[in-house]
């Protein structure tokens, strides 16, 4: 669409890039300080966390502004600051951070959303007695996430990645008194581990191949043509090049974090954590980290692609993404827990992003990531506000009619919902999703992803309408009456709502500023962006789909609020399908009977081995020794002891004699000392005299 002149990349590190490390460092330090605080110091903790994060936000804005100004003046900023961490013989491990459009945009998003959610949580968590612990974990998470964003080294990224995983674990299990919460925490940790193992394998392989883990290092980085060429030359198993294989391994890690299809099971359960956590970690930032990772290593994924063509890795990414998108939104249809629905929709949106990355490139996926971050955070916080208002009620069937009770929440929630459904023209979700669909339309490999994604869009609109109808329309069915949340919670909602609408403006086909910014190309506003062949048709189709979804959702659920106990409309229509969907298509059960069962069996086996085999051996040895001991004792009593006692007596006698020397008088000792010295000296001199 634009004239494809690419800017000259520049490498000199500017002051702002030099101090980029402060952005993650400050919140982490703050977390450390908060960890040392006493529990009742609530205000201080909150202030510290918020203050540190707003500092990061400020710096991020500076960095972004710097990159932006560079872009305006025709420079594609990519400034790296590297340093050697470990110097082991010939090979050295470098760490470093990078400032380029990708990281800049991500920095601003993470710190902004994070800050809003921090402010929101001061309201949401105010009744919790572990307030300080919460903010400690939160700002630790924020720091780690920002670290992931700026990392210029796969290793540093992995460290922060694991740190993020850890904080996610801690925060999911924040209310560890609840068995469900702690179980969910464990599940999340283990499942993401599965992905991370592959990720680590990928890292090691990459290091062994290229000898460096830096992304960009003035031509010496692993993502730069030289290294990539080497990787392409290196064949791996089943017709893959090393580049492709490593890409797939890394993608496995990303899939684990971003809850892509086989590894998505932890994300819904993660909703056991406090809602701000779900909003920040499991909607806006951490789960997006996987997508960001793929975007970061895109050159690797894309390596060897022919012009406009694709690679195995990208194809896999696309298929997994697309299928996840539909799969998750299917499940979302039949959930009754307000946060679970959002969780599944998150999974499906992540699928969209992956698909967008796979088919359309970095910009497409990232754009959806950014917009989604805002409106999904908005939705989650809205849900949190609802839960807060309905005193910890999470089942949407026990709500209803809240639109009058909590108008602010309703309004903002509606904005978020429409953005998520991709309501035409007005909302950011529309443009970002439309970009993905467009990419799918032009994808050379297959058309199926396009159909999948469109179907997903339909389902999205459907289940969101269902949820909103359940929650906000009809009549109130809860116990105690609901109340609007405090301003400290609604204000962030309003801000996010604004972004959920406004962000769309930077990615319209007419003015694809975002894409141009990321790719480092100039751009301008021209309506011909819409004149793209098929674009109008596509937009028409998606608009149609959205309205269809809304309508389908509204018909059965709109304004008629069924009793909590009475079965759902669809359930009455097609019970088996409903059951399947409600039980999340039996994925968990499947894991239960395969993986977990296997582990349980293996544990039993090893237990048996311990008891019977090794235990038996040990017991035998012990018995033998006891026998031997018996023999010894008989020997001792009769032979040894007699002589030993005699010897002891002798010793005591002689000791008594020796003790006479110990007069306890210092001067005696000193005297003897001096005598000894004299003797020694005399001998020495005598010997040296000759």
């Amino acid at each position, binding site marked *: 669409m634009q004239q494809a002149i690419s800017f000259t990349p520049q490498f000199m590190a500017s002051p702002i890039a030099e101090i980029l490390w402060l952005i993650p460092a400050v919140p982490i330090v703050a977390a450390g300080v908060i960890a040392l605080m006493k529990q009742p110091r609530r205000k201080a903790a909150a202030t510290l966390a918020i203050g540190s994060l707003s500092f990061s936000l400020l710096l991020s804005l500076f960095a972004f502004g710097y990159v932006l100004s560079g872009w305006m003046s025709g420079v594609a900023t990519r400034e790296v600051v590297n340093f050697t961490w470990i110097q082991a013989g010939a090979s050295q491990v470098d760490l470093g951070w990078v400032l380029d459009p990708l990281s800049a945009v991500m920095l601003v998003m993470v710190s902004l959303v994070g800050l809003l959610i921090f402010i929101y949580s001061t309201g949401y968590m105010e009744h919790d007695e572990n307030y300080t612990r919460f903010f400690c974990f939160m700002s630790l998470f924020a720091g780690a996430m920002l670290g992931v964003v700026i990392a210029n080294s796969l290793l540093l990224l992995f460290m922060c990645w694991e740190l993020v995983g850890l904080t996610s674990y801690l925060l999911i299990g924040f209310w560890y008194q609840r068995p469900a919460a702690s179980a969910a925490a464990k599940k999340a940790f283990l499942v993401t581990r599965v992905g991370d193992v592959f990720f680590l394998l990928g890292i090691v392989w990459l290091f062994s191949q290229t000898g460096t883990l830096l992304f960009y290092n003035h031509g010496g980085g692993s993502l730069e043509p030289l290294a990539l060429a080497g990787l392409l030359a290196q064949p791996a198993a089943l017709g893959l090049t090393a580049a492709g294989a490593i890409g797939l391994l890394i993608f496995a890690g990303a899939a684990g974090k971003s809850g892509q299809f086989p590894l998505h099971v932890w994300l819904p359960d993660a909703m056991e954590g406090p809602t701000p956590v779900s909003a920040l970690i499991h909607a806006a930032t951490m789960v997006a980290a996987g997508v960001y990772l793929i975007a970061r290593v895109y050159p690797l994924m894309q390596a060897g692609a022919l012009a406009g063509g694709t690679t195995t890795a990208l194809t896999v990414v696309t298929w997994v993404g697309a299928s996840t998108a539909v799969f998750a939104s299917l499940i979302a249809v039949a959930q009754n827990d307000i946060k679970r629905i959002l969780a599944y929709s998150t999974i499906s949106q992540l699928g969209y992003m992956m698909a967008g990355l796979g088919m359309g490139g970095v910009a497409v996926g990232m754009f959806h990531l950014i917009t989604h971050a805002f409106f999904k955070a908005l939705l989650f916080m809205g849900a949190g506000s609802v839960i807060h208002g309905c005193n910890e009620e999470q089942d949407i069937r026990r709500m209803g009619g809240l639109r009058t009770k909590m108008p602010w929440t309703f309004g903002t929630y509606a904005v978020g919902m429409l953005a998520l459904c991709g309501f035409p023209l007005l909302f950011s979700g529309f443009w970002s999703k439309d970009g993905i669909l467009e990419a799918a339309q032009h994808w050379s490999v297959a058309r199926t992803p396009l159909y999948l994604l469109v179907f997903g869009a339909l389902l999205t609109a459907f289940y969101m309408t269902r949820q909103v109808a359940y929650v906000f329309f009809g009549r109130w069915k809860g116990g105690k009456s609901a109340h609007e949340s405090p301003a400290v919670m609604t204000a962030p909602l309003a801000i996010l709502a604004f972004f959920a609408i406004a962000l769309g403006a930077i990615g319209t086909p007419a003015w694809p500023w975002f894409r141009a910014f990321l790719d480092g190309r100039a751009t301008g506003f021209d309506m011909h962006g819409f004149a793209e062949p098929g674009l109008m048709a596509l937009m028409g189709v998606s608009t149609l789909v959205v309205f269809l979804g809304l309508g389908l959702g509204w018909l059965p659920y709109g304004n008629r609020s069924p009793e909590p106990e009475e079965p759902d409309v669809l359930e009455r229509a097609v019970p088996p399908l409903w059951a399947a969907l409600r039980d999340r298509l039996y994925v968990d059960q499947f894991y239960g009977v395969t993986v977990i069962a296997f582990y349980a069996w293996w544990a039993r086996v090893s237990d048996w081995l311990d008891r019977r085999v090794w235990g038996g051996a040990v017991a035998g040895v012990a018995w033998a020794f006891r026998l031997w001991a018996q023999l010894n004792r008989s020997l001792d009593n009769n032979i040894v002891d007699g002589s030993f006692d005699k010897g002891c007596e002798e010793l005591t006698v002689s000791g008594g004699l*020796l*003790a006479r*020397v110990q007069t*306890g*008088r*210092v001067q005696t000792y*000193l*005297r003897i000392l*001096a005598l000894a010295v004299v003797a020694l000296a005399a001998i020495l001199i005598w010997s040296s005299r000759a």
Partner: protein
Amino acid sequence: MTPLAGYLLVAALLFSIGLAGALTRRNAILVLIGIELMLNAANLNLIAFWRYGPHPEALTGMMFAIFSIAVAAAEAAVGLGLVISIHRHAHTTDLNLMNRMKG
């Protein structure tokens, strides 16, 4: 006889005097004094050797003496503190009466 030998002899004499005192006096403080004398004799040796040694500009002996002066000060402080506390417990500074460690 070279000057160095003279200094060394003086140092030896001082050392022996200090030793004799430390061996013969009853009062713990005086024993400490004797030890101080011995230390000083050693310092005198160090400085004499520094002065007449091959490399006076290397300052080795002088430094050694200075450090030993500093250490001796610390030793005196702690030693006298110990004597005082012993006196507080045993009400005597007579070493011959302090033989609790008798074997």
